[in-house]
């Protein structure tokens, strides 16, 4: 017993344990709160999307932070996961009545399909690096959005029906699952906060397992010095593909959870801005910093809602806060000041920021 505890809190595992503790504590706190006092509707409505964005940001951090490649098309994977899940959930809705089982199957489907797309994309993408990779992923995100914008998909007594660009479906008593630019409508809202937290925990487990493994070390070695890593026999493209595919499938799972939280969903949601938004969460929390990513996502996602009372100045203040925090956390003078204060307060010489 003692062994396990010391093992959990030794230097190597401390970060991982802290992450799990934060998530579980937050879950417990929020559950107690929602069951004991009457919390606002706004608060409960933000829980699931916050979980989705945390998973998304964590998965993007795997690519941007650990693998060191700038990906600007993450919303594309989210979209694939989202619309796959909506279709699967719609199709199995009449067969599987249990919402939890239906949710799990839909999320797994979103995860798998998105992972497959990740694998396909990684072939041309990971041959590139730096700006080129950023541009290709950006294009990928746009392509996915445009594709989904043109897909008409539904089912009726005659089976599945599909058409592209122009809607030629004539369903007899059937149901449209995807209708082009109008996206998915009448989706059953089966996502819940507990599922979101479980998804975060699974994501954390996957990411920590990966980065603590042999593959994780080669991924980071390839990031820090590609030539040196190659010279000792690391298969760069294989390790990068692994990180990219895992990231894509996690983003797909997040998209699935997200889609099943709303009754309608339009492809235009998954545009360039969404990719950038998630990237902001990652950069704000620190590249390669998992706890930082979770906290920054929560704060940045909730901040605009907290600022609702400011009305017209809301987005202005939000932007100012973003700029100020980015500047302050990156300013050497402020860091030094914080270090000095905290070393005085906590009587420690070295404090990591």
């Amino acid at each position, binding site marked *: 017993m003692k062994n396990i505890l010391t093992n959990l809190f030794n230097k190597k595992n401390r970060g991982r344990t*802290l992450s799990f503790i*934060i998530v579980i*504590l*937050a879950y417990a*706190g*929020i559950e107690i*709160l*929602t069951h004991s*006092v*009457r*919390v*606002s*509707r*706004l*608060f*409960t*409505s*933000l829980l699931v*999307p916050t979980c989705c964005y945390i998973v998304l940001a964590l998965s993007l951090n795997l690519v941007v932070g650990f693998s060191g490649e700038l990906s600007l098309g993450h919303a594309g994977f989210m979209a694939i996961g989202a619309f796959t899940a909506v279709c699967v959930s719609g199709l199995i809705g009449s067969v599987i009545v249990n919402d939890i089982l239906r949710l799990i199957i839909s999320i797994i489907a979103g995860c798998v399909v998105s992972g497959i797309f990740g694998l396909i994309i990684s072939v041309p993408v990971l041959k590139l690096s730096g700006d080129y990779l950023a541009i290709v992923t950006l294009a990928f995100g*746009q392509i996915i959005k*445009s594709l989904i*914008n*043109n897909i008409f998909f539904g089912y009726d007594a005659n089976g599945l029906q599909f058409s592209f660009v122009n*809607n030629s479906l004539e369903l007899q008593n059937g*149901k*449209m699952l995807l209708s*082009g*630019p*109008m996206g998915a*409508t*009448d989706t059953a*809202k089966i996502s819940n906060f507990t599922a979101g937290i479980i998804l975060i925990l699974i994501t954390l487990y996957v990411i920590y397992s990966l980065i603590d493994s042999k593959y994780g070390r080669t991924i980071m070695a390839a990031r820090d010095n590609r030539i040196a890593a190659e010279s000792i026999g690391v298969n760069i493209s294989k390790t990068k593909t692994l990180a990219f595919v895992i990231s894509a499938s996690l983003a797909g799972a997040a998209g699935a959870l997200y889609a099943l939280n*709303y*009754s*309608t*969903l*339009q*492809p*235009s*949601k998954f545009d360039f801005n969404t990719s950038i938004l998630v990237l902001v969460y990652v950069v704000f929390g620190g590249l390669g910093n998992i*706890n930082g990513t979770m*906290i920054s996502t*929560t*704060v940045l996602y*909730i901040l605009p*809602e*907290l600022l*609702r009372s400011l*009305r*017209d100045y*809301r*987005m202005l203040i939000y932007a100012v806060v973003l700029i100020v925090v980015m500047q302050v956390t990156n300013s050497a003078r402020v860091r030094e000041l*914080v270090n000095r204060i*905290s070393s005085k307060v*906590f009587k*420690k010489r070295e*404090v*990591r*920021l």
Partner: protein
Amino acid sequence: MKKLLVVLLSILCVLSLAGCSNGGNGGGNSGEDAPAADETVYVKLGCSGPLSGDAKVYGEAVRNAAQIAVDEINASDSNIKFEFNMADDEADGEKAVSAYSSLYDWGMQVSLFTVTSGSGAAVAANYDEDKIFAITPSGSATALVYTAEKNFPGNFQMCFTDPNQGVASADYMAEHFADKKIGIIYKSDDVYSAGVYEKFMSEAAAKNLNVVYKDGAFTNDSATDFSTQLTAAKDAGADLVFLPIYYQPASLILKQASDMGYAPTFFGVDGMDGILTLEGFDTSLAEGLYLLTPFAADADDELTKHFVDAYVSAHGETPNQFAADAYDCVYAIHQALENIGYNSMYSTNALYDDMIAQFTTMTFNGLTGENMTWAENGEVSKAPKAVIIENGVYVSAD
């Protein structure tokens, strides 16, 4: 240690949000005694629309006009007055749910729903579940009031639905331009435009309209250059081009068509309204443009003049159809509240039921039409007006 501090701070931040709840939804139901006859009651009127982002012009038009109507009503001697709260939803479904939730927490009793269709579709089910009466000024997709699976009994529309606009346009063309060759340019990734297009095409087929060019789709990313579509329409011999789109891209189409010497008759729907007030647009390009709109700012009836004067003096610009619809919504809600004799004894559920009963039976005269009525499914019935632009003003075209 520092990390722990950050964690604590962010948890605090989250909790403070949870603590915002206090309004509840029982507003206006405080007193148990019978209401005095001349007692003034305030009804909490909510609305969500884009106040930031790309579509903010629409949200602001609705907010400004609704505010004018609310101020007028509150200054009148009516006992039923409004508290108006508009939340920003950035024309995004996800934000619309947050905006709806914040309005719910505030204690919204009746609502102007959402300004845009996409947001409205996302919260239509919420209004239905919470039984809050809502009428949208400008969310024209049918998904706001009913879907293939269910009808939302308390959700209503002040504007025409997309299908109705498509059908009305095709009918108008069949009546007046039966021998024209028709080309269409539309925005395929926009719910509004694609919705109108789809119904127009099926009605056009039913009325045997001669559609010679129907593949003129563009998307948000290609909404700056229309030379391909215009050239194709010209080559196909189209002498009437139907533009079921908003006025910004339409203004570019008019400009580019004029540059390439292509001069068909252009025909728009209500999204075209506003083109004359677009900054930097040469209004002579819009000469001869037909549009189907419920509201013309230059109409010379008393009500329109009064509204346009109030709007111009408050905001310095001519109101568009979004503004007119919002103004009508507030007055229609007020009329219904007067009719049911709303007082502080009303419970939220009774208000919801009585408002539905009232809206499906009453007749309303407003800026955007005479003798408007509403169907059970929430769609409005009013006559679309076709106007043609002559010498920079709308002229009724019949």
